[in-house]
């Protein structure tokens, strides 16, 4: 099922076990931050790892998903499932429009275009009345899931977040291992050849981009519910950079890399927060070390050492 290899199945079972055990040892709100970051990183990994397109504006979809989910929840007190779904739909809609523009170029131009488009979304959020400007949308209620699960309890919220993460994780894995995913990898390796085989590569790239943005939006919506807040930080380009770092550190194009990267980067932020701008410096240094010496990332290096694919 899901096209897991044996090693991947073991790693998956290990990950599920960790997700199940950790909240009894560690602070659940911290873990929820890791899980939403991991889902967000999975969405980014889908583009860079399997289509070969580096989206430097992923925060736009995460942030807009977060804003719209928070707004829907606060204004209409809908069911949590609807708020999260609205977040995903927002990401998808925005992804369709911006993706249509961005896939006209590839390589570094794609990165610059997504960055610039995300900056436009940032300015929009800064000015638009519904986002609350600098204050953001605060005190968003967590509400109930399916009408009966009270999410104001941290543990209940944790299980829901874990469920959303696992669903998104498996969805990404399923996409990659479907015939559609094989075509994506073909496009990454040799786009002119894929075109000559009769694939409309632009359509494939756009669909992959929209899927990626949907997952980013879902991650954003979930994050808004967990923390009860949606702010400009969520759409800021530094968030985009952070998710690039997360995925790079974990391992571009690996299945478990984004999750491992999210755990490391989030913990680092958590424990280094008191040192102010040193967090930025550390992140920058990790970026450089990864690119210079460690391009496969943590999971990629482990996998290559064990000669398996993770």
């Amino acid at each position, binding site marked *: 099922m899901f096209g897991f290899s044996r090693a991947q199945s073991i790693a998956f079972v290990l990950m599920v076990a960790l997700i199940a055990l950790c909240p009894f040892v560690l602070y659940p709100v911290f873990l929820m931050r890791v899980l939403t970051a991991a889902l967000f990183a999975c969405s980014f990994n889908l583009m860079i790892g399997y289509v070969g397109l580096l989206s430097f504006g992923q925060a736009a979809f995460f942030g807009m998903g977060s804003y719209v989910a928070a707004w829907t929840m606060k204004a209409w007190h809908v069911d949590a499932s609807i708020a999260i779904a609205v977040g995903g739909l927002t990401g998808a809609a925005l992804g369709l429009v911006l993706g249509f523009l961005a896939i006209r170029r590839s390589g570094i131009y794609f990165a610059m275009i997504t960055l610039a488009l995300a900056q436009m979304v940032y300015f929009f959020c*800064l000015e638009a009345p519904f986002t609350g400007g600098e204050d953001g949308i605060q005190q968003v209620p967590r509400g109930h899931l399916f009408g009966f699960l009270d999410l104001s309890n941290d543990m209940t919220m944790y299980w829901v977040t874990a469920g959303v993460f696992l669903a998104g994780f498996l969805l990404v894995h399923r996409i990659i291992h479907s015939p559609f995913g094989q075509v994506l990898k073909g496009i990454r390796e040799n786009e002119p050849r894929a075109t000559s085989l009769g694939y409309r590569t632009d359509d494939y790239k756009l669909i992959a981009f929209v899927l990626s943005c949907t997952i980013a939006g879902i991650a954003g919506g979930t994050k808004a519910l967990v923390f009860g807040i949606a702010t400009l930080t969520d759409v800021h380009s530094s968030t985009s950079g952070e998710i690039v770092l997360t995925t790079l550190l974990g391992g571009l194009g690996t299945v478990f890399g984004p999750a491992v990267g999210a755990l490391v980067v989030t913990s680092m932020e958590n424990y280094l927060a008191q040192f102010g701008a040193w967090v*930025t410096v550390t992140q920058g240094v990790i*970026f450089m070390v990864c690119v210079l010496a460690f391009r496969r990332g943590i999971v990629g290096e482990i996998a290559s050492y064990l000669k398996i694919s993770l």
Partner: protein
Amino acid sequence: MIMIFGIPGPLLFGQLLLGLINGAFYAMLSLGLAVIFGMLNIINFAHGALFMMGAFVSWILLNYLGIGYFPALILSPLLVGIFGIVLEKTVISRLYKLDHLYGLLLTFGLSLVIEGLFRNAYGSSGMPYRIPDMLSGATNLGFMYMPNYRGWVVLAALTVCIATWAIIEKTSLGATLRAATENAPMVQAFGVNVPRLITLTYAGGVALAAFAGVLAAPIYSVNPNMGSNFINTVFAVVVIGGMGSIMGSIVTGFGLGVVEGLTKVFYPQASATVVFLVMVIVLLVRPRGLFGKAA
């Protein structure tokens, strides 16, 4: 008072001048990016951070060593250029055989390090840099009062841009450079030290950013974020212009600055996003950019 399209003349010209100044910075920064990209095949994401560094170096020269604005205009690009040489020799040169994206990621990390270090040392609030006495005050142009320093910035930026264009398009050094951009192994076979040419190109592009930084120091306060505020817009400028032509970068930079200035007069709400909207239109109509070569 002169009225133009129902707008008071001085307001219109004032915003046009502000637009030209922003355009001057767009032009200098996108020019450096284009020159570096042509030769090194990487997008120098650290360009904004090096622009900021140029401003900071001039501030440091003034406040610690008492070296004034005009010497700093030479010294700061020189120092940042040397820093660029060190960067290119130690880290960036390791990436030429890899995918372009790694260059982008590395220089992005570099910009985080530089900005973080300056933020630690000087905090995030800006520090003022006084306009040199010689350039303070304003001149009456008849239709508006022009602050002398702003006129100087436009003039200096234009001079430097044209000089860069002339060096690349009209000198034999520039011819070698262009040839190496087209086919590096062949140029190397003719006995040109291509790796050194690459290093110097990077240093030159970086020095251009630092020069822009010194010019910007008296206008914007000197602060660690001044580069990242600019660089996202500069990337949009690069996409709009395409990186194929030097003159194209200059024209696009100044042009978009003016467009931004005019938007501030006629529809201020859109002034922050207008460059990005232009980018959207260009992507729809001419994806390779106004001056870009066909893919």
